[in-house]
């Protein structure tokens, strides 16, 4: 009987290069019980992360002015002093990923030479988007193209021509060029560069976990650099900073997201726009996220991501046809062309005169994507076992980039068309240019199309569900890191982190401090950029030792 086959196990995993380390996963963990609830946490990452988060929340609540002055200064100071560094590093990540696709290492399989993928394409893509970007597409899909198209404040991408005179008259001759540049400049922020940032982190974690046998935790990517020291304080610091950035990144977005959803509800249904409604929204989002993490990765997170993708796709199709499929599709092709033509000048940090765009938007975005990369990268790694490096990068880099360019062309293109058709009465122009109300831009665009009441409701639902999918995947990531890379820690811990995130968001929303702490999270983008560059090197070191197909 001892030789009974085990159909539950994937086929033999084939050759892989397990790193020989003395460290045993979970060796630093404390297991125990508080009352009836079990716990299994990493010592000291869990406790330090929790305490540091509480300390920063307390600081923002006790000295709100000081916190907001300091971080309000720090974030722009970093993105404008180090703009060149952010831009160059992001270029490095894109080139590195493209190189891996064509290099012989592209055939290395994550999980060993004979591993099979854990998830099919549909569920996998849905989870990639829902964790990393979905909410941004909802918020910026209209705002950014519309803003670049018409901004009169001198921060037009590459200083391109303006389509409106100062008193709002259309300048026909400039329209085409302004429109083309608006789509190219938006796509630049949502296509190859952000996904390359995520892909680098995700690839490193997947490689060092599935092929090298190290725990699924950020510190594992540093093994080639730090050696056995990653299990000591170096590793504790890396993991704690990752937890910290993830938790505050999620909590502050949750706070802002509640404000945005509330503003949208106010705009459409006249529901009062106040803190009470926003707190209720946060509680509702956290509650649904809690149900999702309690249903698990397959039954909750994956299913919700799929539902979300279907809804987003329906909204995309609607806007596509309502705004005229022919023009928008040609816009998509034009957008792709514009992106291809402008991506090099846009990503060159030297000799630029459009500092408003380069520092205020591009460097800000890069810092932001990078500060989110531990979370999104780790989640992508968790669901990507069994793919080859080539397949992994193609699917994490190229396909999402195309989808994002399509999304921006449809939503942004439709908004720009509205601004051109009705320069005086366009709701998009009123909410993006005349008065800057970014949270209303999506709803203003939907208003210009038929069935606005239905599509705006769908828009609000999507905003909320995308928050849920970020929140549940984030809680899973934080839970895994603070359990020392264990993915089977007691369920109580997930409940703790998910609830904690909601509570932090509520505290910051009521007490003020969302802006300050979000600025702080984005500031972590700078140290993480250095870390990511090191990770690229670690990936190469790791891949060299692997068997190629």
């Amino acid at each position: 009987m001892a030789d009974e086959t085990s159909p539950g196990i994937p086929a033999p995993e084939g050759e892989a290069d397990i790193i020989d380390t003395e460290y045993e996963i979970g060796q630093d963990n404390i297991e125990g019980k508080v009352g009836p609830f079990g716990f299994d946490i990493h010592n000291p990452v869990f406790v330090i992360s929790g305490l540091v988060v509480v300390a920063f929340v307390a600081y923002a609540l006790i000295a709100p002015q000081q916190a907001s002055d300091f971080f309000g200064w720090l974030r722009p100071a970093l993105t404008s002093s180090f703009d060149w560094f952010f831009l160059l590093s992001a270029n490095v990540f894109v080139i590195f990923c493209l190189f891996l696709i064509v290099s012989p290492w592209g055939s290395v399989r994550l999980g060993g030479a004979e591993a099979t993928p854990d998830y099919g394409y549909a569920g996998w893509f849905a989870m990639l988007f829902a964790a990393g970007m979905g909410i941004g597409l909802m918020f910026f899909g209209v705002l950014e193209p519309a803003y670049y198209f018409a901004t009169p404040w001198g921060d037009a991408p590459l200083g391109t021509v303006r389509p409106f005179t100062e008193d709002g008259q259309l300048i026909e001759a400039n329209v085409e060029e302004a429109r083309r540049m608006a789509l190219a400049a938006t796509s630049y922020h949502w296509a190859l560069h952000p996904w390359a940032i995520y892909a680098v982190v995700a690839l490193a974690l997947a490689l060092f976990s599935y092929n090298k046998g190290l725990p699924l935790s950020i510190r594992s990517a540093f093994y080639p650099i730090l050696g056995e020291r990653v299990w000591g304080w170096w590793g504790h610091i890396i993991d704690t900073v990752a937890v910290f950035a993830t938790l505050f990144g999620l909590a502050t977005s949750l706070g802002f997201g509640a404000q945005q959803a509330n503003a949208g509800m106010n705009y459409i249904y006249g529901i009062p726009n106040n803190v009470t409604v926003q707190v209720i929204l946060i509680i509702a989002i956290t509650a649904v996220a809690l149900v999702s993490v309690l249903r698990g990765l397959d039954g909750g997170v994956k299913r919700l991501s799929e539902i979300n993708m279907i809804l987003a796709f329906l909204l995309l199709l609607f806007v596509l046809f309502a705004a005229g499929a022919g023009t928008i599709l040609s816009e998509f092709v034009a957008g792709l062309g514009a992106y291809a033509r402008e991506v090099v000048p846009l990503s060159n940090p030297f000799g630029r005169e459009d500092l408003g765009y380069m520092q205020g938007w591009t460097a800000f975005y890069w810092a932001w994507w990078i500060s989110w990369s531990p979370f999104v990268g780790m989640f992508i790694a968790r669901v990507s076992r069994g793919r080859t490096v080539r397949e992994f990068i193609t699917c994490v880099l190229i396909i999402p980039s195309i989808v994002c360019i399509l999304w921006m062309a449809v939503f942004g293109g439709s908004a720009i068309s509205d601004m051109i058709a009705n320069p005086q009465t366009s709701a998009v122009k009123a909410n993006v240019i005349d008065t800057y109300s970014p949270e209303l831009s999506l709803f203003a665009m939907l208003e210009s199309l038929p069935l606005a009441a239905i599509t705006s409701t769908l828009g609000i639902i999507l905003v909320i569900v995308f928050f849920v999918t970020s929140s549940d995947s984030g809680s899973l990531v934080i839970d895994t890191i603070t359990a020392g890379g264990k993915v089977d820690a007691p369920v109580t811990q997930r409940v703790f982190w998910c609830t904690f995130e909601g509570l932090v968001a509520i505290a910051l929303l009521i007490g003020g401090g969302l802006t300050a702490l979000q600025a702080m999270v984005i500031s972590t983008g700078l140290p993480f950029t250095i870390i990511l560059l090191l990770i690229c090197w670690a990936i190469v070191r790791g891949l060299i030792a692997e068997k190629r197909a």
Partner: protein
Amino acid sequence: MFKKIMTPVDLAHVGTLEKTLQCAADLSTHFKAPVVYVAVTSPQPGKIAHTPQEFAQKLEAFAKEQGEKHGIETGSHAMTSHDPTIDLDPTLLKAVEETGSDLVVMATHPPNFSDYIWPSNGGYVAEHSKVSVLLVR
């Protein structure tokens, strides 16, 4: 009366399973039914093993050791789950079918407050399994 006994084990906490393992072995001797040890792992490296394959080997070794210790016929059946924290119960139910067992002997803790929120694994399996389940406290 029983043809095959399935015993879920947590390889990280074998020390706490002594009573259950003894019970399964005694029943095995009595009914002359082999014991199949089942354990669930995630695809990620864990405390026990770096890969699901290594995990299966360790479980097999454990089964062999139990067989020699108790003088019974044993087997092993390793299962993988994307999210063992949540999916342990349905995975165990699937294992009952896959192994063709007609009796489950498993450890469980005495009921407490948390069972009102999340039933214990043993409680869930006993409630949903089609075959007989013996819970050892």
